[in-house]
């Protein structure tokens, strides 16, 4: 699954290099599930799945160049939650305009310690910059041919 994390909720060093996701990057609104997208909803290689998920998420979310899509593994996330004595549920929850939408339920929105444990399962390499995805989208919208390596 994949989670949109805004730039301000990323852990960065003083050179603005991304070090990971802060706990509040995974903080759901009170009494709501944590909004994610189900990557396996899409076919193809990982890069194609991410692009397709980004397109679906774009219909509902305003992405900025500094944001990331954070890849999360369902099993790892569940295991981390269980090690803290909490049981989470990952459910497919399609919404209008985003049929790949899913939710992580039973995430306590005010428990920073727990959310930090879940955030710690996301490695730096799991953070996919939105910048090239936005640039690709702009290029396609303008009618130009996308670069071969995009």
């Amino acid at each position, binding site marked *: 699954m994949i989670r949109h994390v805004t730039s*301000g909720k990323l*852990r960065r060093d003083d050179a603005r290099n991304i070090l*990971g996701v802060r706990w509040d990057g995974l903080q759901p609104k009170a009494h709501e599930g944590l909004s994610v997208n189900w990557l396996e909803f899409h076919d193809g290689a990982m890069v194609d799945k991410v692009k397709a998920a980004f397109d679906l998420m774009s219909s509902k979310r305003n992405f900025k160049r*500094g944001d990331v899509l954070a890849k999360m593994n369902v099993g790892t996330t569940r295991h981390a939650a269980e090690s803290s004595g909490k049981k989470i549920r990952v459910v497919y929850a399609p919404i209008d305009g985003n049929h790949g939408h899913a939710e992580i339920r039973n995430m306590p929105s005010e428990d*920073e310690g727990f959310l930090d444990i879940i955030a710690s399962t996301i490695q*730096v390499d799991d953070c996919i910059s939105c910048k090239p995805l936005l640039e690709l989208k702009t290029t396609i919208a303008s009618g130009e041919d996308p670069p071969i390596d995009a």
Partner: protein
Amino acid sequence: MTFALAVKDWSSSPLEFNAPLLSRMGVPTTHTAGALASIYNENRHHVRSNGDTDQETNVTSIFERQSLAAKLYAAKQSAKQYASVFGSRISQEWRKNLFWQLDELLSEEEWDEDNAILDLESWKSFLTGMFVIRPAKRPGIGITENGNVVASWGNVSEHLDMEFRPGNEARWVLSAIVDAQFERSAESGSVLRLLERLAPYSPERWFGC
């Protein structure tokens, strides 16, 4: 206070603006009357004609959008001015880095509209915290949804994220390996006692001092 007071006679052209009042409402003072009229005209399709209240609401939102850049700029300037005066013990090099980070954080194109603008009182607490800690490793900074400064140190497995709240209060979340045991903690307390509170976790792992 509404724009009905600031913008007179909706139907007439050209519009008349009460510049001092607009200025007090946060509309950039650099906008000339012509620029204000232009903004209004570009966005007038948003303005419905079924009553003054709707018009006021819609015109207000037009100017709110326009004034985001001004608000971010004002927040940056206030924070930098405060750091320059209050933070005289911060080296010039570090201050330059902090200002650069602020510019990045508070850039209009990166700003998340759902977030509150930087709270100057939180920024003051952050600077106080830096005097207390005097970290050799400088933190990366972020801003929470409610406008508080967050300083981060460390990597995914051993990290410290500290939110600075107004009034020299801090809330921190940490993970560290202590005596071969993985420890995590979420606590809060006075910025003035940060080093004592963090001492059991050997904070030099994050601060480098």
